[in-house]
């Protein structure tokens, strides 16, 4: 053995440590991947060694490699091995590696349950801390369920370091195991008033996180938080609370009213910018929630805006950014108060920081009004010119368009100005947003009839200078505007001043360098233009002129016929033939203009974007019905179109009201007529169907822009947008004068009337009448369409499960799965007494519990019984089992306690093979120690691997009287072999005080550590618990004697073992052997193994049919190996152990356990 050790450490000298690894990676820059794969091979070798230090070193290196992006999941088991090392150094390495690499998919994670539980209850706070930290990163639903109670106990740990970690990790537990929220909540709430600021802040953190997801469940905590907010001085806590209030106020406006004052005070008093900022944010949230009910908070708004202005003016870019961010929130509800800071926000457009500029742009979007739109856009245009870098300039461009076009051009009073802006924007180099500008041009030209003339003149000059735009082919995107220009000039050619000139411009050879889709539009619109020129010439009687135009077409069109773009080619060929035909007709002096124009007769009207979808399905038409039955052999091909129809149908309201109203009838008639008009085989009643179409009464349903142009402006040439600003001012002035006049008149009429705000010198938005009007195309929704609020909620949202009512009293079924005792929910620490609310809440379930106990129906009672005697055959349990089955298969059966890890691994094959296996009744490792009328003691003895030869005795003290028990002290008579660990400086005869008091009916757990000399034999220790029972009648000194039994099994610690390691161990041959046989056992093998695992702290190494090998280790490092075989009615257990005495004692204990089965 010793030799092995020495050899191990010599080996270690040649191992690479992490430092060598890092150095190596640096030195192998060229072939890093190869070097690392080499290292990984070495690491695999190291992991095979027994020396835990070598393993830890290897895992350490793996953690580093994980950071570099290497998958280390293959080493999960080794990581668990290092986690279960006794030394903190290794444990810490193991847990770090686990926290970096474990996740829900890691299958070995279930093996960690016991290890973690052991570490959680470790006497060393750092072991516990490390386990908590690790667990916070890889907790799974199973771990959460199994450890919830242990963690909850830790929330009342004596060390604040542990308390705060335990509190924080509860959030993760809640997420994975939502059932734990209600039982744990009272204690969590209690931690809000923990004396340690760290714990308090952790509790606030957790509750804020919970409340953020489901705020309504936490409204009842508002008073408590309110108290905290006014009393706490910890800025972290304050920020969290204030953020929380921001989430709560929308649900409870009364809360908002209460908050305003303290928040305002904080805003005035604090010097921490972060706190100030959050206060302002929450005040804004409050004001938003109040905005409907209480109008008079202008002072608060002013304060917020003022403070934000200070932030924005600050030289710190971060504050500036946040200030703008918060400002945009105010903007939504109180645009007026933000608008007064327009100057400041415009200034931010000059900022060197792009994020700030973008934020400012966002703000501007909301700040525009009819009054200031031109000014703001003008300012933006100057920025467009100055801007460096295309991204920001593109952003500016889209923002300008957004700002102008928002809510149907609501703020545009002069469309000529807007067209000029768009034209100016086309001079931007290298923008990607040509199509955006084009879309705007088309939209405005189509919808604002009055602007068409002006638009056409602008577009024709654009077309004229098209060579500028198209000069460099890769001026990505801006040439898109030519698409719009060509279309507008063609479609509204009647407004063109010099159509011939434009026609020539559109037929220039240069045009063929444009993208295909633009050329196609060119070709199509050239004909429209041609048609209108033809008509003009014919009307004027210029036959020659007409022929000249035709000749021009015939000459120029072939260049498009040669285009590589199919669309262009096709259109051009078609049109060329048409024009040639016209030429022939012209040669015969036949008037053709009328017929050519007929090609493009009729006007295009704007249609709402969704209008097509809104066309109702005519009554009696079933879109899903087959017109012809599908052919049976082509079924697979039909599948797809069918699915498409189905989808379509779902979006549409299924059922249309049968009583079709007038409107609908008219519409249907219209549709029919239109269909007839388009049907060449239908004999029409009128020669011009288009015209008739416009006259029909049903046509109003189609949204058509109605234009009322009051001041038609005629600006010759290519005007700059700037001049409109001036013109607009004049126009407004004019309007104002008129209005004032009218108002004066009115005033004279109603002299008694109240004074009007309107008479103030500042004109409000409403006063400005637009020069042109746009009809707002409202987007209707089908009648049956539902608001889609519910779609927003993601059914997979993990936080949904936490939407739990916390005010309902706890039901028994809701208790956390407890492997040991039931103190958790009801136990109280002394400081709890000054939290009346919390107490009341936790009392309720307690009472219930008692009642149930009396009736003997409670599960706990059963557990209790099982603690006294060992589990006995079940009777009358059907009821309970049923309950449990209905409770959900998900949570299955809670396998009690330490059996979990090993048991689960072993049980798996059985579950597959024999799913009807009867579950074991819940068991507890806690056994009754002693009881009297005052108190009941149950205890569990656990070995600890951290400290050699130490066991921890967890004693649950339950107060059964109605007195308060205090001054409890435990004294144990030490034996030669076992000694109790006492606080420093106390003598052997002193008792160890229990660190809590017990109010009536409450139980709590205390832990005591014993040092054991030899673990080979069982031990019995005598002890006494002395305490003072105090009730209304006075206090009495009481005591209770007990005998503490350390069985050999209690010295064993569940340790996982690999089958190859197990085989090696047995091969070594230095183990002595012994065996026992027990007859008359009815229990299934599965449950039998579970019992051995649970009561004797073994783990299953391997299992084949009804034969299993098991392993455990004593706290002093004795290996114990078992081979368990089940016969017909008997079980034989062969054991091998490094100490024969220990083995025989163990087997005796096991025999006793099995005999009870």
């Amino acid at each position, binding site marked *: 053995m010793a030799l092995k050790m020495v050899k191990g450490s010599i080996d270690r000298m040649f191992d690479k440590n992490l430092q060598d690894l890092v150095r190596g990676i640096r030195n192998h820059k060229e072939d890093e991947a190869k070097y690392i794969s080499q290292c990984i091979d070495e690491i695999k070798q190291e992991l095979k060694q027994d020396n835990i230090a070598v393993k830890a070193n290897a895992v350490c290196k793996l953690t580093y490699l994980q950071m*570099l992006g290497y998958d280390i999941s293959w080493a999960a088991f080794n990581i668990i091995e290092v986690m279960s090392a006794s030394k903190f150094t290794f444990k810490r390495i193991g847990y770090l590696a686990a926290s970096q690499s474990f996740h829900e998919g890691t299958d070995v994670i279930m093996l960690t349950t016991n290890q973690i539980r052991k570490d959680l209850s470790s006497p060393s706070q750092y072991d516990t801390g490390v386990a908590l930290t690790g667990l916070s990163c890889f907790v799974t639903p199973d771990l959460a369920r199994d450890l919830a109670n242990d963690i909850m106990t830790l929330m009342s740990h004596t060390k604040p370091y542990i308390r705060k970690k335990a509190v924080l990790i509860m959030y993760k537990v809640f997420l994975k195991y939502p059932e734990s929220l209600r039982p744990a909540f009272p204690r969590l709430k209690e931690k809000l008033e923990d004396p340690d600021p760290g714990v308090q802040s952790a509790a606030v*953190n957790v509750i804020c996180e919970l409340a953020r997801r489901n705020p309504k469940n936490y409204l009842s905590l508002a008073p408590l938080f309110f108290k905290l907010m006014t009393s706490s001085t910890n800025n972290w806590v304050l920020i969290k609370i204030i953020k929380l209030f921001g989430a709560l106020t929308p649900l409870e406006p009364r809360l908002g009213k209460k908050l305003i004052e303290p928040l305002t005070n904080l805003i005035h008093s604090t010097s921490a910018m972060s706190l100030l900022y959050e206060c302002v944010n929450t005040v804004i949230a409050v004001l938003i929630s109040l905005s409907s009910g209480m109008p008079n908070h202008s002072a608060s708004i002013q304060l917020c805006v003022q403070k934000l202005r200070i932030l924005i003016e600050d030289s710190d870019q971060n504050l500036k950014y946040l200030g703008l961010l918060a400002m945009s929130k105010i903007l939504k509800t109180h645009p007026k108060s933000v608008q007064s800071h327009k100057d400041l926000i415009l200034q931010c457009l000059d900022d060197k920081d792009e994020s700030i500029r973008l934020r400012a742009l966002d703000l501007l979007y909301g700040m525009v009004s009819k009054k200031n739109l031109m000014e703001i856009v003008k300012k933006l245009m100057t920025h467009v010119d100055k801007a460096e870098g295309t991204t920001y300039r593109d952003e500016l461009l889209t923002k300008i368009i957004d700002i102008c076009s928002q809510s149907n051009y609501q703020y545009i009073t002069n469309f000529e100005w807007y067209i000029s802006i768009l034209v100016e924007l086309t001079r931007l180099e290298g923008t990607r947003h040509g199509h955006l500008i084009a879309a705007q041009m088309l939209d405005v030209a189509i919808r604002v009839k009055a602007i068409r003339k002006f638009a056409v003149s602008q577009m024709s000059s654009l077309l004229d200078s098209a060579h500028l735009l198209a000069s460099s082919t890769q001026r990505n995107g801006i040439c898109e505007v030519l698409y719009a220009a060509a279309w507008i000039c063609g479609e509204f050619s009647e407004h063109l001043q010099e159509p011939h000139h434009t026609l020539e411009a559109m037929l220039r050879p240069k045009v063929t360098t444009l993208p295909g889709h633009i050329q196609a539009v060119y070709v199509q619109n050239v004909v429209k233009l041609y048609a209108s020129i033809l008509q003009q010439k014919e009307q004027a009687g210029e036959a020659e002129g007409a022929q000249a135009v035709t000749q021009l077409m015939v000459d120029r069109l072939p260049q498009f016929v040669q285009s590589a773009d199919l669309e262009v080619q096709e259109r051009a060929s078609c049109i060329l033939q048409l024009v040639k035909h016209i030429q022939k007709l012209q040669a015969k002096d036949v008037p053709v203009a009328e017929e050519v124009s007929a090609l493009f007769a009729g006007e295009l009207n704007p249609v709402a974007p969704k209008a097509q979808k809104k066309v109702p399905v005519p009554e009696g038409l079933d879109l899903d019905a087959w017109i012809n039955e599908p052919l049976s052999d082509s079924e697979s091909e039909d599948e797809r179109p069918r699915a498409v129809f189905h989808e379509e149908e779902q979006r549409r309201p299924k059922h249309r009201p049968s009583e079709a109203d007038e409107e609908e009838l008219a519409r249907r008639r219209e549709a029919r007529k239109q269909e007839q008009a388009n049907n060449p085989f239908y004999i029409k009643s009128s020669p011009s169907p288009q015209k008739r179409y416009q006259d029909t009464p049903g046509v109003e349903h189609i949204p058509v822009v109605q234009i009322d142009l009051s001041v038609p402006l005629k600006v010759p040439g290519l005007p700059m947008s700037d001049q409109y600003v001036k013109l607009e001012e004049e126009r407004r002035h004019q309007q104002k004068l008129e209005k004032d006049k009218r108002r004066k008149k009115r005033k004279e009429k109603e002299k008694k009337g109240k004074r009007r705000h309107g008479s103030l010198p500042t004109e409000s938005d409403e006063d400005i009448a637009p020069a042109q009007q746009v009809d707002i195309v409202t987007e209707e929704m089908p009648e049956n369409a539902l608001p889609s609020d519910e779609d927003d909620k993601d059914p997979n949202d993990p936080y949904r499960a936490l939407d739990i009512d916390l005010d309902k009293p706890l039901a028994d079924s809701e208790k956390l799965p407890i492997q040991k005792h039931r103190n958790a929910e009801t136990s109280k620490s002394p400081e709890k007494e000054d939290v009346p609310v919390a107490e009341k809440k936790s009392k309720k379930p307690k009472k219930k519990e008692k009642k149930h106990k009396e009736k003997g129906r409670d599960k706990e009672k059963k557990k209790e019984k099982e603690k006294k005697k060992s589990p006995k055959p079940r009777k009358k349990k059907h009821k309970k089992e049923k309950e449990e089955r209905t409770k959900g298969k998900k949570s299955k059966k809670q396998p009690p306690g330490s059996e979990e890890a090993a048991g689960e691994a072993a049980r798996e094959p059985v579950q597959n093979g024999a799913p009807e296996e009867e579950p074991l009744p819940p068991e507890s490792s806690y056994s009754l120690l002693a009881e009297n009328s005052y108190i009941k003691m149950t205890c569990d003895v656990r070995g600890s691997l951290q400290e050699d030869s130490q066991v921890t005795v967890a004693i649950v003290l339950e107060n059964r009287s109605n007195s308060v028990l205090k001054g409890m002290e435990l004294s144990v008579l030490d034996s030669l072999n076992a000694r109790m660990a006492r606080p420093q400086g106390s003598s052997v005869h002193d008792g160890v005080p229990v660190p809590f008091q017990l109010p009536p009916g409450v139980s709590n757990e205390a832990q005591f550590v014993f040092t054991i000399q030899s673990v080979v034999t069982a031990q019995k220790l005598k002890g006494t618990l002395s305490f003072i029972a105090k009730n209304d009648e006075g206090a009495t000194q009481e005591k209770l004697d007990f005998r503490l039994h350390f069985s050999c099994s209690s010295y064993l610690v569940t340790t996982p073992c690999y089958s190859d390691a197990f085989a090696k161990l047995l091969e070594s041959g230095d183990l002595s052997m012994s065996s026992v046989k027990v007859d008359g056992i009815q229990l299934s093998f599965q449950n039998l193994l579970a019992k051995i695992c649970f009561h004797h702290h073994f783990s299953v190494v391997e299992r084949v049919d009804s034969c299993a090998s098991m392993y455990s280790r004593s706290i002093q490092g004795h290996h114990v190996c078992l081979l368990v075989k089940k016969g017909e009615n008997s079980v034989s257990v062969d054991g091998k152990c490094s100490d024969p005495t220990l083995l025989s004692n163990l087997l005796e204990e096991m025999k006793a356990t099995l005999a009870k089965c």
Partner: protein
Amino acid sequence: MIQAILVFNNHGKPRLVRFYQRFPEEIQQQIVRETFHLVLKRDDNICNFLEGGSLIGGSDYKLIYRHYATLYFVFCVDSSESELGILDLIQVFVETLDKCFENVCELDLIFHMDKCNCWVIDEASRRKKWEAQRHQQVHYILQEVVMGGMVLETNMNEIVAQIEAQNRLEKSEGGLSAAPARAVSAVKNINLPEIPRNINIGDLNIKVPNLSQFV
């Protein structure tokens, strides 16, 4: 909640990668790379917030970062965290690192990695040793500041005290590098010239307002 904490140097080499939500390793690396390219583009004198968007978790998330000489500390947080608070937290974290490594004066080294390039080979190897040993240490320190994505402790003295206690505990156990390995490295380092101790980190340019408010 904090979604992820990334520390990388000016060349994008990760120094610490801590995700509080499961991502496969290759995605983690991709995120580190993307984040690096995002922050690299930004000047030092512009704001420290980035609306990360597509990077991690969508629009609710923000990247909040600080740049110290050669290292970027990036926190990806959701809207429940206060932006300025997280900036202060990064400051606390960095100052804690500074404090914990003070006795070896090697935080300076990492702060001035680029200036160190002219150093002799031995210096460089010493530096690597720092990285190696500290990689774990930095994680341990971070674990005392942030746990499972939630802020655990913001009081620097408390953090330092806990770290020191744990390191003492580790020392009492003999540490990971047990005697033989230590002997080897002692031999290796025997001829190291004195590491310059006067590197000044005055140019850290800390601009957090009122840090003291949080302590």
